[in-house]
């Protein structure tokens, strides 16, 4: 029954997601919606490292940026088909995940955190300074839109539906991983690393693979982003951008898929709704975040659990 409830909830959410664009008339809101879907895919990716195994990961913006530039440069400089660019971006994600994760996740302690922080800065510098390749601070313009069966996706509703399809696939993959030994072991690593060793588990291998798959998600989303806006710029991929995704996870609920979705929606859309506050909108947003984290420390995804427990306790008293 519990499984059925979950399935029904998912179907309702999917139906709502499918109908949502019909209620949107402005171009601006449609783009915002498209962006939200892309960002949720990133949150799903970050969830594998930070959400499950609990290691802080600051590389998100860098990998997202590299994914964007991979497809952006391949399509603009070499005229390659955008879809091949997207696949190349996923490959880039895997390579970066391996190269960065393999050495740093084998060591105990904060080496991984430092490596991701350093990587973030290196990538930003390279993107702005390797002018001959990246166009430096001018960014990369005129990136072609994605096309499917002759329909251009551009910034339109079409893009939304295709991205939504990818999101659903991403969620399915996440479910497979989280509810297998992979997910359970990653959670176990967060709970007690030393005991994981004692169980005969090569925890580094789990962490590295989780980081690689997470990087693939992030780079993929980055490539979608490049084709969505058709313009990318190194200043988009900074520390602040990374923090945005960390906030999504913390707010939504670390390690949970509904958490990624809810966190992704709130953190992307809420600041837009606060824009009427003018220059204070970011301050107001930060304050709201803080308050929410104080009152629901385990994130939005934990609310049903909390309610269930309260109901149980109230029932127990009678």
């Amino acid at each position, binding site marked *: 029954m519990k499984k059925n409830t979950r399935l029904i909830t998912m179907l309702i959410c999917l139906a709502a997601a499918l109908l949502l664009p019909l209620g949107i008339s402005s171009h601006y809101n449609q783009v915002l919606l498209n962006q939200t879907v892309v960002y949720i895919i990133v949150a799903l990716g970050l969830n594998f490292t930070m959400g499950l195994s609990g290691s802080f990961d600051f590389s998100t913006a860098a990998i997202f940026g590299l994914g964007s530039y991979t497809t952006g440069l391949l399509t603009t400089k070499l005229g390659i088909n955008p879809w091949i660019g997207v696949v190349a971006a996923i490959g880039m994600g895997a390579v970066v995940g391996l190269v960065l994760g393999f050495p740093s996740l084998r060591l105990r302690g904060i080496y991984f955190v430092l490596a991701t922080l350093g990587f973030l800065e290196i990538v930003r510098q390279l993107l702005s300074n390797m002018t001959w390749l990246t166009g430096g601070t001018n960014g990369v313009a005129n990136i072609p839109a994605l096309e499917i069966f002759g329909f251009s996706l551009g910034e339109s509703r079409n893009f939304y539906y295709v991205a939504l399809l990818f999101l659903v696939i991403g969620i399915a*993959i996440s479910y*497979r*991983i989280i509810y*297998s*030994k*992979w997910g*359970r*072991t990653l*959670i*176990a690593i*967060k*709970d*007690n690393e*030393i*005991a*994981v*060793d*004692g*169980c*005969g*588990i*090569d*925890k580094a291998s789990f962490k590295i*693979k989780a980081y690689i*798959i997470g990087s693939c998600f992030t780079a993929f989303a980055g490539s979608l982003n490049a084709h969505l806006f058709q313009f990318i710029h190194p200043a988009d991929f900074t520390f602040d951008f990374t923090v945005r995704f960390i906030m999504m996870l913390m707010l939504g609920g670390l390690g949970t898929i509904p958490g990624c979705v809810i966190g992704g929606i709130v953190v992307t859309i809420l600041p837009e709704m606060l824009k009427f506050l003018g220059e204070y909108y970011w301050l107001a947003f930060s304050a709201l975040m803080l308050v929410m984290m104080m009152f629901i420390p385990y994130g939005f995804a934990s609310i049903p659990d909390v309610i269930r427990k309260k109901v149980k306790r109230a029932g127990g008293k009678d």
Partner: protein
Amino acid sequence: MEDILRVENLSKQFGGLKAVDQFSMNVQRNAIHALIGPNGAGKTTITNLICGEIQQDSGEILFQGESLGTLKVFERARKGIGRTYQNIRLFDTLTVLENMTVAAKVEHSYGMLRTIFSYKSSQMEKKERRDKAMDILKYIGLEHLANEHVRGLPYGNRKILEIGRALVTEPSLLLLDEPAAGLNPSERRRLMDIIYKIHEDQISVFMIEHNMDVIMTISDRITVLNFGKKIAEGTPKEIQNNEEVITAYLGNRFKKQGA
């Protein structure tokens, strides 16, 4: 009888302190072997050396005739050294069953890509892990708690569960670090029953323990450690009457008395 574990001239120094000094010991296969000694004698250091949490300065550890060299903790665990910890180390946010399935040694273990793309494989592995975990939960008498969260479990059950989690890795040597600490008399009884059962199932047991009633009742052999050195080894009776052991535990009388 054959030795499952041989420790030869093991030494480990922390700064100026010789925590373990030229320590040798053989643990016989299928025995219950206890390591005792006053506070700070070096017992936990020896356990950590055997498990590979730290590396010795000199000496050698042979498990089933094979040198453990610089193998990592998880590699030693895979070779068959299972352990529990002095301060329980469970996976608190997982359920009882999940604690077991994570640790379970299984025949069908698939990579991440196969888990994602092959429903059949992933279900098969899940089932094997689950079945195995349930078997051990029944063995230690915790099957009725399978779906409980570990965090809410009473202390005694957490300690027993930790032994179960070690058993599900299929060890041939089980290291218990103070298994009776903090248990009440009835829980202690339950613990001893489980250790006996493990012993009867041909798993060698090596334990550190402070509760002398437990030690003297269930050990076949006892090694006594003081200031990092072995001072005695023998049966419980021999140990209880060993003068050096008595001095190590109860100290000397005041020399200047009456002077």
